[in-house]
């Protein structure tokens, strides 16, 4: 599953550490998410989308 977390983070001017603190996960989780190596839970996906004031499907691109 692809996502635009890195682009959004750069647009908002926040670091991985700051985003991790906001959504209550470890920085490594944000790194893995950005690299597309980890699929988040529904709650984490919602929290991240909510932080950027977007819908989950706008942040995460669901492939087949």
């Amino acid at each position, binding site marked *: 599953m692809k996502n635009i977390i890195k682009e959004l983070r750069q647009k908002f001017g926040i670091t991985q550490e700051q985003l991790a*603190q906001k959504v209550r996960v470890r920085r490594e989780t944000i790194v*893995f998410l950005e690299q597309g190596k*980890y699929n988040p839970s529904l709650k984490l996906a919602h929290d991240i989308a909510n932080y950027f004031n977007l819908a989950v499907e706008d942040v995460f691109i669901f492939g087949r």
Partner: protein
Amino acid sequence: MTFKQYKTVQIAVLILISIIFSQTFAANSLALSLGVLLAGSLLLLFLRKRVKEVILDEMSYAIGGKAALAAIQIFCWLAVIMMLAANAMKHFNPIYGTVCNIMAFSACLLMLIYSASYQFFAKISWKDPKLIITLLLVLIFFSFFILSVFVKPL
């Protein structure tokens, strides 16, 4: 306290506990060695509470679950191989027979604990017939191994 500071202190405390524990245990001071272990564990627990950052999250649990399952499978296969090897060599030395039983016993115990933990976390009903049959089979094997380890043949 930051997570990096906690990790540094944790390693230092673990090294210190290991040194003191080994020295006190070698000096036959069991009470002191147990006291050191307890104090060290409490100190680490106290330090962990002081960390404001997130130490474990959903990805840690996901990786931990996969790693635990892999460790259980690898251990069980190794136990089976060692059990067969020890069983084949028990004619050379009777102690290999005991080793064989203990390996089989350990693998069964591990599977029993895994089944119970899975049951607890998955919140499966204890009345599920598949679970009852599985647990009964494990218990029957478990009883056989206890008998073979602790009861000598007539």
